[in-house]
């Protein structure tokens, strides 16, 4: 019983982490049609900023609060300088963002000296529920993920900014004709996606420690999750992320971990082949 509960929490918290990482990836893929290979490096940047704040003697949570904004700013600048040249060709966008990711990753590798660096959890200890103990910080991540997910959904479906974003996605020409500045919207959307990645990086760095390949580790899982969920909607990638995250965490309990990893990918690709539109089809929030 206790074991089952611990396993369940493990699955839940890993699922939440994947959802958090995929949120930004999914928004950029769905709203802009770009598979951003540099997304993993935005996660890394978020983690690095948190580490930097911590090593300067600031409390960890300050770094975590600042990271999304800084990474969002970086995303906005990069979109203006580079990414907007890639909109016409999705494959070129993949390669271009890959190059960008390579630059960021290797820069961080140089800055950290290729070491594994630890950042302490801002909320340490564990929560005791009778006989079970669960990590307080992992629990916090789950809570924050749920809050961020809700906030993103409200932002895209209920606010005028969300309306503009969706209008730009649906019909850029008409959106421009209606007086919406589509380049600005694209820039803001990309920055928003980057900021979410930065937040994810900042939150997970105490769990995974900081190293240069932190982002790439999640990137492919993220892409698969987006495809499973379905490109074009907000909720699709999130659901895909939940499924992939839960499966990745749950399968190692059932079969050997080596095969579990491979099995998840094979299953996911087979699913996408059979149902290319993903879990949730169509363009909606």
């Amino acid at each position, binding site marked *: 019983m206790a074991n089952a509960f611990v396993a369940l929490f493990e699955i839940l918290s890993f699922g939440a982490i994947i959802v958090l990482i995929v949120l930004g990836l999914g928004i950029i893929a769905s709203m802009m049609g770009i*598979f951003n290979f540099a997304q993993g490096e935005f996660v890394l940047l978020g983690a690095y900023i948190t580490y930097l704040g911590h090593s300067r003697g600031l409390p960890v949570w300050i770094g975590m609060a600042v990271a999304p904004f800084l990474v969002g700013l970086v995303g906005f600048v990069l979109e203006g300088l*580079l990414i907007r*040249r890639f909109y016409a060709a*999705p*494959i*070129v966008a*993949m*390669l*271009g963002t*890959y*190059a*960008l990711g*390579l*630059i960021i*990753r*290797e*820069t961080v*590798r*140089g800055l950290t000296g290729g070491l594994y660096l630890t950042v302490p959890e801002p909320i340490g200890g564990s929560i005791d529920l009778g006989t079970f103990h669960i990590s307080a910080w992992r629990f916090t991540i789950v809570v924050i993920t749920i809050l961020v997910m809700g906030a993103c959904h409200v932002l895209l479906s209920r606010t005028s900014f969300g309306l503009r974003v969706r209008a730009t996605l649906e019909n850029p020409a008409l959106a421009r004709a209606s007086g919406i500045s589509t380049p600005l919207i694209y820039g803001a959307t990309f920055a928003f996606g980057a900021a979410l990645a930065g937040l994810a990086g900042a939150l997970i760095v105490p769990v995974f420690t900081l190293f240069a390949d932190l982002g*790439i580790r999640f990137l*492919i899982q993220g*892409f*698969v999750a987006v*495809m499973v969920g379905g490109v074009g909607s907000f909720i699709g990638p999130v659901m895909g992320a939940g499924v992939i995250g839960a499966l990745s965490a749950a399968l190692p309990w059932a079969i050997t*971990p*080596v*095969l579990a*990893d*491979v099995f998840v*990918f*094979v299953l*996911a*690709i087979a699913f*996408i*082949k059979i149902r*290319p539109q993903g879990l949730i089809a169509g363009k909606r929030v």
Partner: protein
Amino acid sequence: MNANIGGEADAMMAAGEPAERAGLPRKILPIIEGLLLIAASVVPLVLADYLTVFATRVVILALFALSFDLVWGYAGIMSFGQALFFGSAGYGVALLARDLDITSILVVLPIGTLIGLALAILLGGFLLLGRQPSSVIFVALGTLTGAYAADRLGRGWYYLGGQNGIASISPMTFGSYEFAEGPVYYYLALGLLVIVYLFCRFLVRSQFGLALAGLRENEQRIAFFGYKAQHLKAIVFTVGGAIAGLAGSLYAFHEVFVWPDMVGVVVSTQVVLYVLFGGSGTLAGAVVGTAIVEGLSFWLSDNYRNIWPIILGVLLLLVILFRPLGLISFVLGERERVGRFGLTSKEKRNAAS
């Protein structure tokens, strides 16, 4: 015989017409190919031994890059997992040498090629064929995922050596002769590269290649002409996988070492870099790109090991933004990149007369 002489006379007469001269621009591609071949054949004679070993590696990687160029540059399939075939073949021949003690070149190279071919048929058939044509993105991510999954499998599976891979593979043999690294291995690799290059060149300049060019430029129109676009793609993908398998088995015996990176994302993206740098869809560009990237990396890695990947990223970004056709497009025109198909004007006139 007569017709031939007449044709030459016709061509000589026609040489005066300006339109004809525009139709026959100087061919640069054969010059590049010839220069490359000459340079490659004298390399072991002028270089120190340890540089010959490095040059061998470049030649083998160029063979690998050729496979990716065929798949991406000619069929428009973004194979982000080309290393899957390269590395699996490498692992396959390494296991043959380790467990079954088979190192004869006449067995291991064909088997390596077959491993690449078989995997490419499986993966390509699954990703590319089917009732609905697959999107470019799906194929790109599917191949990437395949390579990543293989990487994880290689890392975790004890039989394959896990994280450390399989080291000290016994050398490839022919009878009692052992191919050690050095000039002999170099010329072996170069010979195979030339053969495969000529084969690819024949393939892309044949009628099949014409259909491929159409596929790359406008897939829908080719489909309307009645070609089975997906089948064409699957065939090219399979050929690419076989070539990658050949390169992988050569590489494994040359490095006497296979490790999980070789099947994974690292090497997959590396080959993309080579081809983008050199220029996709030219074959020669893939070879040039490999030589430039590997050469630069070799030269810079002594003093600038840490910043070299950053420089590589910046250069790649610049090439993508300003030279989408790669470095070779500085000397090679668009017309020659696409190539000429069907009858030349000379032959046409013969047919008419």
